[in-house]
């Protein structure tokens, strides 16, 4: 075997990657070959240099805190239900639908309910109708209300009267 191949074996020997027979063969070769012996010595020194150097290195104790914080915050994010999740639960979905329906109905009722002005106008119209029909109980009230038609009731400017006159 050439020295280059022996060096590959020596490299593996230094890493403890050889079986007993190969180890013996490498030891015997190192004793007999100067070039490979120097190679072995240099690489043995190199290996110990790396081992010593690596021993002094250690990660910061704060790394775990950062990892833990990130894991727990991510877990909290995933465990917190979103607004959409509420709709995915059947019971809550029915509840939400019922509430929406009630709100819609209430809004509709509110919209259809006449305002104070509307109620007043309606009352006036009722009074006028009743008055025209000759309801004696509302006669007094009809005078108090400023009904525009009353103005023309007896006056000459009543458009209905003028029409009647024209017909005549």
């Amino acid at each position, binding site marked *: 075997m050439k020295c280059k191949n022996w*060096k*590959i074996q020596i*490299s*593996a020997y230094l*890493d*403890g*990657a050889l079986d007993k027979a190969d180890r013996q063969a490498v030891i015997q070769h190192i004793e007999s070959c100067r070039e490979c012996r120097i190679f072995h010595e*240099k*690489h043995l*020194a*190199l*290996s110990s*240099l*790396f*081992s010593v*150097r*690596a*021993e*002094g*290195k*250690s*990660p*910061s104790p704060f*790394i*775990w805190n*950062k*990892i*833990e914080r*990130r*894991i*727990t915050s991510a*877990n909290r994010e995933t465990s917190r239900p979103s607004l959409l999740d509420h709709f995915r639960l059947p019971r809550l979905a029915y509840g939400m639908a019922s509430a929406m329906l009630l709100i819609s109905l209430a809004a509709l009722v509110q919209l259809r309910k006449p305002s104070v002005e509307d109620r007043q106008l309606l009352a006036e119209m009722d009074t006028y109708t009743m008055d025209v029909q000759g309801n004696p109980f509302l006669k007094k009230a009809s005078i108090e209300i400023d009904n525009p038609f009353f103005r023309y009731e007896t006056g000459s400017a009543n458009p209905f009267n003028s029409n009647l006159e024209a017909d005549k």
Partner: protein
Amino acid sequence: MTLEISKEQLEKLIEAAAGGSVEDFRELYEIYSASVYKFVLGMVGIEAEAEDITQEIFIKVFYKLKKLKDPGYFRFWLYRIARNEVYQRHRQIQRRSEVSIDNEEIGYYEFIPDDKNELDPEKQVISRELDSVIQKAVLSLKPKYRDVFILAVQEKMSYEEIAKIVGRSVVSVKTDIYRARQAVKEKLDRYLY
């Protein structure tokens, strides 16, 4: 150095951590973090960067642990994730440096790491210089040589274990380690006696 733990204990820890137990995952972290960090530091050469990558590695491990079918492969699987994370970060850095203003061909990881201020000033200077030279020698290696070299020489892993991590044959790993050794030795020759 990896703490001693029986196979059964390790399997229990892995199963519990895969089920979402942060406490058990912390134990796994305590066992493997130092060696993973050293491997990453050997690959990147900057302490802050190595810590950042180590953090990312363990977060990935926590979320991917459910997918690990055989707890016996945890160590290889962990180093595989670590290696991938380092390569991924390396690619990101390369992309970033491609668009940087000063397009110098200085490797990102050819940075002299910060040193611990525990030694006396004279030794500190020597140690710093040697540390820097060693780091530069390792960083001058191609990534495919660098990872196998660190796993073998620094982490003392067997060639079979390394082959599983890097996904190459044992013979290929053996010759790659030899080549890496030779290259590093040439750079550090004057420091070796």
